[in-house]
């Protein structure tokens, strides 16, 4: 290992001696992010799956809901790249269109939770006092449930639907964003530039949202990506249990639900394996991105 490092050092030294290494104008975080090969893989995969979902109509001519009783449970073929399901729907098309909903749920909930969490956390963290105490208590109540228990409870209370699922995820997810933002704001609050702004008597909202928030955004972004991954997994798990998005809407989890049937599991791998792999890949891509972001925004990590 040390020999490998030595070689690397020599290379750098040599290059510098030749007077290279000028003009690095790129932002340091961005550079580190790009240097993180896994993050790049993540971005590429993420973009690929996302674009494929968005432009699904260009990639497949099949209607994800198009029943064709004359070709059921067909194995992958040229006609149906990933085969068909029990009522002859094209699985490839279902995976693509299902991605729209699954990604919407994941990203939408993460963004929604982040929006509420950041909105409240930034202000309460900066301002402190009664508001902060109150919101903190509320978030404590939400967080004293194991996540899945709370989600299940809310699913029964609100009923099963796509919007409800989004609401539920946002309800269960804002607490952690709130706490993180609040904690960041608490530490930023002690930074001297904030004290300086306060010495001018600037409006609290301007100080909190305009001046302080941008500096707390790094970890929040990381949190958004990682919770996107989490929500996608959670949606899939709930749908798998039959408690998520109503079964008639194609989502990755709902497609996988078919694998609960053991004969499908044993005989029709194309129904569950590709979706399972796509979910895993997508979540992995998001995680890679989140990790890359974390590394690039974390000043203590060096590379």
């Amino acid at each position, binding site marked *: 290992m040390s020999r490998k490092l030595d070689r690397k050092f020599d290379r750098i030294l040599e290059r510098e001696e030749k007077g290279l290494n000028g003009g690095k104008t790129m932002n340091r975080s961005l550079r580190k992010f790009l240097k993180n090969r896994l993050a790049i893989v993540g971005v590429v995969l993420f973009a690929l799956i996302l674009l494929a979902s968005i432009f699904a109509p260009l990639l497949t001519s099949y209607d994800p809901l198009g*029943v064709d009783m004359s070709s059921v449970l067909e194995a992958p073929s040229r006609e149906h790249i990933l085969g068909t399901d029990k*009522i002859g729907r094209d699985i490839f098309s279902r995976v693509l269109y299902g991605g729209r909903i699954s990604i919407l749920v994941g990203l939408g909930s993460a963004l929604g939770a982040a929006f509420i969490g950041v909105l409240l956390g930034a202000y309460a963290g900066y301002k402190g006092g009664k508001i902060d105490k109150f919101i903190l208590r509320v978030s404590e109540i939400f967080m004293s449930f194991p996540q899945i228990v709370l989600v299940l409870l809310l699913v029964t209370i609100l009923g099963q639907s796509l919007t409800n699922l989004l609401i539920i995820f946002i309800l269960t997810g804002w607490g952690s964003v709130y706490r993180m933002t609040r904690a960041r704001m608490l530490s930023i609050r002690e930074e001297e530039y904030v004290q300086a702004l306060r010495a001018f008597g600037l409006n609290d909202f301007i100080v909190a949202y305009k001046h302080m928030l941008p500096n707390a955004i790094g970890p929040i972004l990381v949190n958004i990506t990682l919770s996107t991954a989490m929500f996608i997994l959670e949606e899939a798990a709930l749908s798998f249990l039959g408690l998520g998005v109503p079964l*008639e809407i194609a989502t990755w989890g709902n497609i996988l639900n078919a694998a609960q049937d053991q004969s499908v599991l044993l005989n029709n791998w194309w129904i569950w394996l590709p979706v399972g792999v796509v979910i895993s890949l997508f979540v992995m891509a998001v995680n890679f991105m989140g990790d890359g972001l974390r590394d690039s925004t974390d000043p203590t990590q060096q590379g």
Partner: protein
Amino acid sequence: GCSSNEDPAETPETPGAETPGETPEEPAEGGVIYSNGGPIEFFEHPWLNPGSFLYNKTLFDHLIVADENLNPEEGQLAADYNISEDGMNLEFNLKEDLFWHDGEAITADDVKESIEYALKISGLNAVFASTFNAIKGAEEFVAGTADEIAGIVVDGNNIKIEFAKLAPDALLTFTQFAPLPMKHFEGEDPLNFQQSAFWQSPVGSGPFMVEEVKLNEYTTLKPFDKYHAGAPSFSIYLTPSPGDSDPNLVTNAQAGMVDYAFTKSVEAANSLKEVEGLNVTQVDIRYTRLFYPNKFPKADGTPSPLADAKVRQAIAYAIDMAAIAENLFKGAAVPANSLSPNEATKATGLNDYDYNPEKAKELLAEANWDEDYELDVVYYYTDQQTVDFMAAIQSYLKDVGIKMNFRLLEGDLGSLLWTPPADPVNGPSAVEWDLAYAANAALSLHEYYDRYQTGSSSNSHTPSDPKLDELIEATNSTFDTDEIVAAFQELQKYENETLFTIPLYYQPTFVIESDKIVKGAPAYGNPQFNYNWEIQNWEVKAD
């Protein structure tokens, strides 16, 4: 809170096992057969689904035993029985030396008390209910003006039942109705019947008795050595599963843990066929899946789009049930043309509504179908197959120009599905849907049709129709077999024509037996009901 359980501490005891002098001299020399459908939280009482669960069929005996077609064969607990020509008087003589699993003797009073108690519980099997309610004095008893049912007279081993009105399914009822040791229910609220501690480890009268209950894990049944028809030679091990759709059936079977089971799942049946040592037999049963079309005007007064029979017929024509049955149900569903299954006595020449989209379009045009109207279809099954089926229907209806939307019903299903309108003639409808996808399982044909009589408490979708009332009445007004058959055939024809329900398919059930069962039931009947399967005489390979 709950008053059903005065003393929960004594719940887990197995009453049968601790009766003195009852130690089994010899454990069954035979092997063990494995089955699913064991209790999860509790043993389901046998007065709603008399034979759905293997434990109910083996733990409880009935007064009469039926053959595989559910026709009364001979006495079981009863040494003999006798019904009068007009069907208004029924008499049983109990066998001597009958015992409950706890060692107590079975008396005629137990039978009488069981019937009385059954009338007080909620969720009594519909056939039982109509039979018992027909007994003389039942009305007074239910109303609370009489302490007992006057029409049931007990004398030693003799029980005489006198009916106030004709009960066409009286004998059928007693082939399925299991008397219970009523002393275990003393002081308990009949409304909380299922919540009684009794159902944690019931005491029965059948060939097997509960040996060990580990709820959620397993339950074992052992031979009852005082069984009146001779104790069996093997024991039974039950794995828990919810109802008749056991998601783990295949896994269990592959692990060698299924020797006897039945399932309605086509997929499971197909997988099981491939498992070595298992034999799968298809059995036709009285189980119909259908659409209830809501023909009452909507709450806002607009007429139901389904009130026109042409629309209902168009829907029937538009759906290619044959293709669905073959592909989605793997050939294990039979397209239906009536609520009544295809039995020997069924009317002939019924319209099968074979797939015919052109005809459907024509009918719709005649009916002035509004292309923009979106049919609201509801269902309450939470499995994937139902959703797939709905999706298939949606796609077929789309082809003929009917938009439809389907959704899972959640909440208080009783009122969402079955609340009849206050005015059974003009409506408006008390429920919101246009079509409800549901199942009708029936012990007897009466059970299929009786609810369409005007004034029925659960007919939420078909407005009062004098012709229909008349046809139904005809099936219930005689005890003569031929007349009954003729009446039903008339009814079937009317039904087939008007489609007051839209039957979709009949679902058979699959009985799975392993090679371990050397000698099994003499004939295959509906595994969800009680018939003469002689389990006490089965021969099972030892492990």
